[in-house]
């Protein structure tokens, strides 16, 4: 196996083993979305209106939940030192870790979205739109969160800093994600902007995260 595929397999394995984050993200998503109808009340029309926004908020918080362990776990046992020394470029290492995180936490969120859409009284068309928007948009959440995860490791201030750093940066993804899922006339444009945001964060995120990790060496 090449170094990077070995890393991908290891990170995915860790996520699904005991103490891993794969199931936690989905369960958290489930709980948040289940709580919404209880809090808002049994007004079906209102649920349908706010449904896509609630799904997006749930996905945002769920993917943030597991991000803080992304580099911290490797730093605590010295694995990160070996990755920094290694022959594989750090940018690619970071990208592979992001891919493993997305496959184990982002993708399951997309998969359970149709079920949770039913909880929120969404139409089949709207469910498909939200699921597609999440499929396109969640990689952006992971890649933006990557930078925060790397910074919080470098600054040794733990996970509490992460949401403060990351949430403001996810605002555009949230806005266009919800707009794309709304099913209005402008949602086609919103889909394209969402795709652009994901592509941008895919390119910039790993470089910024790798720079943050290198800076942490000081």
């Amino acid at each position, binding site marked *: 196996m090449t170094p990077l595929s070995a890393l991908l397999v*290891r990170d995915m394995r860790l996520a699904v083993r005991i103490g891993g984050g794969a199931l936690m993200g989905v369960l958290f998503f489930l709980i948040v979305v289940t709580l919404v109808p209880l809090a808002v009340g049994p007004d079906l029309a209102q649920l349908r209106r706010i449904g896509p926004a609630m799904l997006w908020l749930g996905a945002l918080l769920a993917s943030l939940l597991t991000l803080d362990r992304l580099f911290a776990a*490797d730093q*605590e*046992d010295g694995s990160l030192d*070996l990755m920094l*020394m290694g*022959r594989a470029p750090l940018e690619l290492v970071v990208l592979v870790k992001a891919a493993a995180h997305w496959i184990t936490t982002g993708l399951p969120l997309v998969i359970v979205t149709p079920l949770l859409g039913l909880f929120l009284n969404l139409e089949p068309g709207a469910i498909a739109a939200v699921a597609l928007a999440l499929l396109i948009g969640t990689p952006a959440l992971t890649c933006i969160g990557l930078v925060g995860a790397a910074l919080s490791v470098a600054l040794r201030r733990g996970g509490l800093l992460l949401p403060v750093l990351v949430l403001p940066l996810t605002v555009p993804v949230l806005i266009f994600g919800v707009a794309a899922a709304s099913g209005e006339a402008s949602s086609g444009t919103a889909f394209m902007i969402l795709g652009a945001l994901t592509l941008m964060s895919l390119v910039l995120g790993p470089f910024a995260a790798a720079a943050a990790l290198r800076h942490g060496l000081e």
Partner: protein
Amino acid sequence: MRLSASGLTCIRGMRVVFENIGFELSTGEVMTVIGPNGAGKSSLLRLMAGLIRASAGRIELEAGDSDLSLPEQAHYQGHLDPLKASLTVAENLAFWTSYLGGGLGAEAALVAIGLEGLADLPAAYLSAGQRRRLSLARLVAVQRPVWLLDEPTSALDAAGQARLAELMRDHLAGGGMIVAATHGPLGIEAKELRLGRVA
């Protein structure tokens, strides 16, 4: 091959850890770094591993692979054992072997370090000494000319220390170099680099 350093200075958090350190090491030689706590033994090793930056000075590896930097040609064993509790012994070792560029199979490396029969045990159930052995197994599994070891014998029992000494001898005989920070004897002939004030 030849590893040389001159004028190394390390400043961390406004404090001078060490100043103007130099040494030379050639193929088949061991250097032990000794000194009191806080003298900068670990800092020197981390500096050589590229994990902290030197404020001044240079380290060079002559006649190594010119495409690779010193950290890329070195094994670093710090105080921590880079193992995941939820992976088995074999999975942990197989990951680092593939990640670091491949080499010996996990089976043979585990035999060399004395962990045969534990391959399918999750690393969570290992003792501190067994964790250290598993961590050192990657040094055997993947070939690197330079070994940077920070207190490698800590947590190892007498048999483990003897085995490590044997592995180090094999590594040196194969043209390797070792820099080790240590408080106790390693069980092999070594140069000494003394850090900190001489008492």
